[in-house]
């Protein structure tokens, strides 16, 4: 089932034009040097920016989005944050992932380290029942153990039929899972 289609979509400030189809259960890996348009591609897919050329066609989707820089409300504790988010997304807290990441749930978000904030942002992204998950630099700030936990979790969700798009500077880690690899 087709979720999103980009047909020669691009921005004036970028030389590249994107043609891409994202289907259900796809795993799209995006890699490339800085400034080559990875984030622009993601923003076009999310509908945050409009293409100056070409078309972006999309169904009404629920997209779990992890931005490049973790964007979280700072003055709230981890557990109430996750509980409220799970409630409005009509999903359940993934206690397995929380425990695996060893996240201090009773701390306020501003007290968390960069790595823990990234883990929290990742858990938030998986909450609910998204049709597509877009992870922009998910490994930023993660140690090796957490990286492997994340990979295992992505593999599990992929098995359940979830679609993924991952933009990373370390594509080798996800190469075995990718159905499409875009190098910009």
């Amino acid at each position: 089932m087709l979720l999103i289609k980009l047909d020669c979509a691009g921005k004036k400030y970028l030389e590249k034009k994107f043609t891409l189809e994202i289907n259900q259960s796809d795993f799209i890996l995006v890699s490339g040097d800085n400034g080559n348009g990875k984030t622009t591609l993601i923003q076009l897919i999310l509908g945050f920016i409009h293409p100056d050329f070409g078309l972006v066609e999309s169904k009404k989707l629920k997209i779990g989005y992890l931005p490049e820089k973790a964007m979280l409300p700072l003055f709230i504790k981890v557990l109430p944050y996750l509980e409220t988010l799970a409630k409005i997304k009509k999903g359940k807290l993934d206690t397995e992932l929380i425990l695996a990441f060893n996240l201090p749930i009773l701390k306020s978000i501003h007290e968390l380290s960069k790595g823990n904030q990234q883990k929290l942002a990742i858990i938030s992204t998986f909450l609910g029942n998204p049709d597509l998950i877009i992870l922009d630099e998910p490994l930023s700030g993660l140690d090796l153990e957490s990286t492997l936990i994340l990979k295992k979790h992505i593999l599990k969700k992929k098995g359940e039929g979830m679609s993924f798009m991952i933009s990373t500077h370390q594509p080798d880690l996800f190469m075995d899972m990718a159905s499409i690899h875009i190098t910009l």
Partner: protein
Amino acid sequence: MISYLYIHLFDQKKRRIFMISLLVIVLLMIFFLYTKDSVAEQLLFQTYHNLYYHLIMRRIVSFLMPFFVTVIMMDHDQAYLKPIYAYFGRKKVLISKIALYLLIMTWIYLVIGIIYHILPSIMTSYYILNTDTIPFLIHIYLDGLILSIFILWEVKDKHKAFAIFIPLFYTLVGWLYEDYQIIIIYYLIPFYSSYFSSFTLAYLYKLCYILLGLAITTKLTLHEEIK
């Protein structure tokens, strides 16, 4: 969704600022209410005292409330709403955001209205309820909604410091209306004016102005680029 936005946009730090601002307004009211006159004197000059109270309080409320509204609303555009936009869509988030701020504004103005009446009732012997106060408070509330729309429309995360110009502009327009009753300017910016606001149609005009503002803000917000 509203409760989720509430804990984000109205976090502990913000709630503290809100309570302090409310306290400042109450303390200012107490300062101007305090009188050394005896009960007999207060009752003897009741009309004079009442006139003074309402005049001063109206100035304080109409001067401080725009700043209060700005402090509460200036953080409405936050980067951490991006994942929420991606999941729920902009429309749902925007509607919830508007509903949340409408609730907060109504609550604040209700509290101010109650304090405006309760405080002198407790602290003085001269206070009598002036029926002119109710239209004034309604106008100030509608002004608060107009300012909220301006802030939703204009103030974005990257340049939120400029939000301070909005209450300053409100104050300047208020001063202008004190000396000049130019109806064209009132049509463009229907902020409280003791002259224009006495017309019954002023309420209706402000309501239409608010609805039009909301429609324009919604249209622009749904189509703007999020970077």
